[in-house]
């Protein structure tokens, strides 16, 4: 815009041209960019098929189950809670305390539950498979529990709601002696201790 004005006014009266730009008649075009509103109108072409109704329908169906589960959880005893726990275990690789992407997804879900039930305190138990020695596994299980706790804290769960304990390989969940059992026993297990 300005280059057009300057070329029109000539190189001698640059200052005048600038002043003229301040109150010249050609400025109004600058106001034209305002028509952003028009863009919405173009999308109006798709408004012919606004099946918004489906969305409201979907929402109601989701809502009913959640309140039911909430009241069930809210009224359940600690034992009932822990028997069918809404907090899922995170599983680990052999001799590792690093969270896999699957484990992180599980913990993301657990963080959501813990945010919803903000009064719960939980103990995170670290467990190991039977291949390591009982002694080393005590420390490895603790490391798994601590890693899990740190991740939940990073997701905004208050640190004082999360305790850790390591049971090493003392309490296997699966009694077998093969990888299918081992993989279930390398875990951070959640126990709700107060609600």
């Amino acid at each position: 815009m300005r280059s057009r004005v300057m070329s029109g006014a000539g190189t001698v009266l640059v200052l005048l041209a600038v002043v003229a730009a301040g109150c010249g008649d050609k400025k109004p075009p600058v106001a034209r960019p305002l028509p952003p509103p028009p863009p919405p109108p173009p999308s109006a072409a798709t408004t012919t098929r606004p099946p918004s109704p489906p969305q409201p329908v979907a929402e109601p169906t989701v809502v009913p189950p959640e309140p039911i589960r909430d009241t069930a959880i809210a009224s359940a005893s600690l034992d009932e809670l822990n028997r069918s726990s809404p907090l899922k275990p995170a599983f680990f690789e052999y001799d590792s305390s690093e969270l896999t992407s699957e484990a992180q997804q599980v913990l993301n879900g657990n963080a959501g539950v813990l945010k919803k039930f903000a009064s719960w305190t939980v103990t995170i138990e670290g467990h190991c498979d039977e291949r390591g020695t009982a002694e080393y596994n005590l420390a490895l299980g603790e490391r798994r529990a601590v890693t899990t706790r740190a991740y939940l804290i990073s997701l905004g769960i208050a640190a004082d709601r999360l305790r850790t304990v390591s049971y090493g390989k003392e309490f296997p969940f699966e009694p077998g002696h093969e990888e299918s059992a081992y993989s279930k026993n390398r875990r951070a297990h959640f126990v709700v201790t107060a609600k």
Partner: protein
Amino acid sequence: MAGAALALSGLAAQQQQPAQAPPQQQQPQQPTEISTTISSDQAGLPPRFAVPDFIALPGEGAASSAKPDAEVADAARTIGRVLWDDLNFEREFALIPRDVYSTVPAAKSVADVPFDRWRELNADGVIVGAVHKTAAGVRVEVRLFNVRSQQMAFGREYTGSIANARLYAHTISDDIHQQQRALRGIARTKLTFNSDRDGERLAGTVENRGVKEIYIADYDGENQRRVTTQRSLNITSTWSPDARSIAYTSYRRGPPQIFVSNIYQGTLEEPTKNGAGQNWLPAWSPDGTKLAFASTRDGNSEIYVMDRDGSNLRRLTNNPAIDVSPTWSPSGTQIAFNSDRTGTPQIWVMGADGLQQRQLTHEPYADRPTWSAAPFNEIAYTARTGPGNDLKILELATGAVRQLTFGEGSNESPTFAPNGRHLAFMSTRAGKAQVFTIARDGKDLRQVTKTGNNYQPDWSK
């Protein structure tokens, strides 16, 4: 005597030059030892001993024709048989099997030993003992005869209650080993371990979790007794050097803490009471004044030392890796431990002040070091060898490693007998987890526990 001479020369070789060892072996023995030590008439072989049942005698003052009561007869039979087992355990003497003793007429008194008949069985020594009933209990007299010279090489008498006849045999065995071989016998030592044999369930958990309680037993597996009764997870028990206390890890308060049970007083101490983090794996210093242990109180598993009452806490390791499983050297100047700071769990050693940390093993996976008693300067540990674990022994002076078990089940948690000649360990070779003992050369495997699962043995000092 030969064992002691070898032991001395071994120590000298470490501290000075190996060249000095041979002259020491040729030094003359003390005359008194020569006159009472029974040896085989075949050089290089252990002397052959016979240990018949002890003679049960009626109480003093009773008519010589009176019959000894059944209790005394039982004790006499038990002492003879247990003494046979105890002496056999150290393999310093070749014990003539008991089933051939029937060819020798049973002695009626300690005076009528049929030496010629024992000589026919090729015995070098025969142990003749008698049990007398007394007003307070029993008097046990025992004599070891040189069968060829018919001279008495050892003679002693013991008095006390009749309640634990096995203890007379254990004491006699230790005395004979000391007198004949200058060897510290282990017949009176005990084992501690944890067991789920009671089938009790942990309270307060929705999972089906069995408790583990601390047990003790004689070295041969007899007299198994439960120490803890909390219905909790109690593990890694270990004897104080005076064998009057047991330190262990218990979850009875929630997170694991270290407890000390004074088993003869019936009192309990909690040196890590209210300590932050997890506190595990206590290990007594050789003088019994301190406990090394592993703790996550500073955020990561490290090795600490405290006085046995929990005071004077000191941190020895400072490393983002896992540091666990401390064990003291017999002199108390060094601590071996497990660390995965190289990426895999390995055995490390450091001064008792935490300085001069260095790696000892290069295994795929190694844990639970346990330092042997003098004169053997060895560390036994658990090594991954396949699907399971096996025991290995590292000789510190040379760096040589030898394997003790070979893939029969998983073999873990080695612990040395106080004379360094035997180990106890956990093995799954018989199906469940059980405690076994084995000689340090890998021979003489014996199963000590048979009920339930039994883990993490520790041998009293």
